[in-house]
């Protein structure tokens, strides 16, 4: 990039200093991760062995596999349903263009709190609270859904056109009427998109929370990994990928139906 006129990223010496600092930090961070050639070569060797042991995928214990996948699927459905149901009112209450800060702030903190932990970490806490099994996974994924859909929904509401709101308000409508006739028609179609996206994300995460004992295929996967049954691991991974691909196709199809 030579002397072009529009250079929004390199204008001030301070910004250049910032870039330098970032580059130095990245170099230091990389060196702290002790990556060296010897390790890489050993790694390649290990990797070859690992991959050799993965083939052919072993579907012998398919009953356990199907059971785990079904449970993952159930967890994903329930968590998405509950999560979107909860984030609908929360998203409304957190929108700063509709409500005073006194209400939006606490709700915003709840949403941020739900989003700040990875579902697997939430799952650990849930396993302690409600024991091993699908319930812990459902709660963990629901929390994650509330954090994600709640945030996006709030942002969608904050972007709406206020003209319709004012028009509805001018007729003397109550707050609920403003929401139903002024806000919802403007954001509902985006909400459906968020819900579809979240279902997809939950499907992915529902296959993982089992690592900490919160139900689904993840438990089976982790156990197989620790027993070095890499051919069974490969079978499970293939099934998970297939499930996620189906989820992605469904999501695209759903978007087509709702024309987004």
């Amino acid at each position, binding site marked *: 990039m030579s002397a072009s006129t529009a250079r*929004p*990223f390199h204008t001030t010496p301070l910004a250049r200093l910032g870039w330098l600092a970032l580059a130095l*930090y*990245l170099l230091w*961070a*990389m060196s*702290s*991760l*002790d990556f060296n050639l010897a*390790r890489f070569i050993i790694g390649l060797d*290990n990797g070859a062995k*690992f991959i050799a042991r993965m083939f052919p995928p072993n579907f012998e214990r398919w009953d356990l596999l199907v059971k785990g996948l*079904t449970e993952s*699927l*159930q*967890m994903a*459905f*329930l968590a998405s*349903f509950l999560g979107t149901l909860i984030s609908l009112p929360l998203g409304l209450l957190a929108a700063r263009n509709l409500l005073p800060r006194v209400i939006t702030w606490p709700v915003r903190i709840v949403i*941020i709190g739900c989003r*700040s*932990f*990875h579902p*697997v*970490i939430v799952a*650990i*806490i849930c396993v*302690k*609270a*409600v*024991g091993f*099994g*699908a*319930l812990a996974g*459902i709660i963990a994924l629901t929390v994650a859904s509330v954090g994600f859909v709640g945030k996006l929904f709030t942002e969608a509401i904050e972007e*709406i*056109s206020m003209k*319709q709101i004012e028009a509805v308000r001018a007729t003397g409508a109550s707050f609920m009427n403003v929401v139903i006739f002024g806000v919802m*028609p*403007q954001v509902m*179609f985006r909400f459906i998109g968020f819900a579809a996206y979240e279902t997809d994300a939950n499907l992915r*995460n529902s*296959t*993982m929370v089992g*690592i*900490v004992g919160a*139900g689904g295929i993840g438990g089976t*996967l*982790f156990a197989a*990994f620790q027993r070095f049954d*890499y051919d069974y*691991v490969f079978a499970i991974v293939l099934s*998970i*990928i297939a499930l*996620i*691909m189906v989820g*992605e196709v469904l999501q695209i199809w*759903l978007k087509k*139906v*709702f024309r987004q």
Partner: protein
Amino acid sequence: MTSGATPLSAAARPGTGDTWQRFTLAEKLARFSVYIAIAAAVGWATHSVEIIVEFIWDAPEQIADMGRRMWPIPWGFYPRGIHAALIETLNIAAVSTLLGVLMAVPVGFLAARNATPNRLINTIARFILVSTRSINTLLWALFFVAVFGPGALAGTLAIAFHSIGFIGKLFSEAVEDAHRGSIEALSAVGAPKLALIQYAYWPQVKPSFWSIALFRWDINVRESAVLGLVGAGGIGMALDTAINLFQWDRVALILATIFGVVIVAEMVVTEIRKRII
């Protein structure tokens, strides 16, 4: 109206009778079957999922017990046992974002139909994007732990590979949204491919590029906090140890630390976004 396009296009269609209808019969049926399918799926899941009811009754007691064991939070333990792990987590997040971007940008260009007018290459690139994204970070981590042994390196590569799909997909969409004007102008004067990318595409996709990279870094900070559960380095290792030893007070301290970092990361992202985008 923001949702404008939908009703207008339906209205322009030949109506099904004298009365105006927002959706055609086929659309109504499609929507209706989606609702039915959702209801059926939720019903089936509720009915058949295995939930042990005794555990639910026990939950309040367990939560109270957990709360008691978590309090007081041993802040003094932070410099000894957690600070180094936290720094490692942040390093993993930063380096993996960098690696992810480096790998994803070429793939993203190859996946964009306007930048690479070759259907076969597009399809291959898209397949790479979809498949890397389909494999969860934790799965990648398990794989790299088996290959490179436990540690931060496995975690970094895991997040980097998982990020390819996300960054590449959004980036290729940004490239596809680029205006054709400057691209055509440059190709008309016979500019080589690299010059096209540098002077026609890059200036147009630059804002989205930074926004995507920042967004991914924010996600990667969260992701790198769990990697330790499968032995791939970072603060998750400390968390895993504390949980296995039932040191709930340390668990609370680690969770508080993660919470703080995530909040700071989010504030940093918001601030940078405001300034440069």
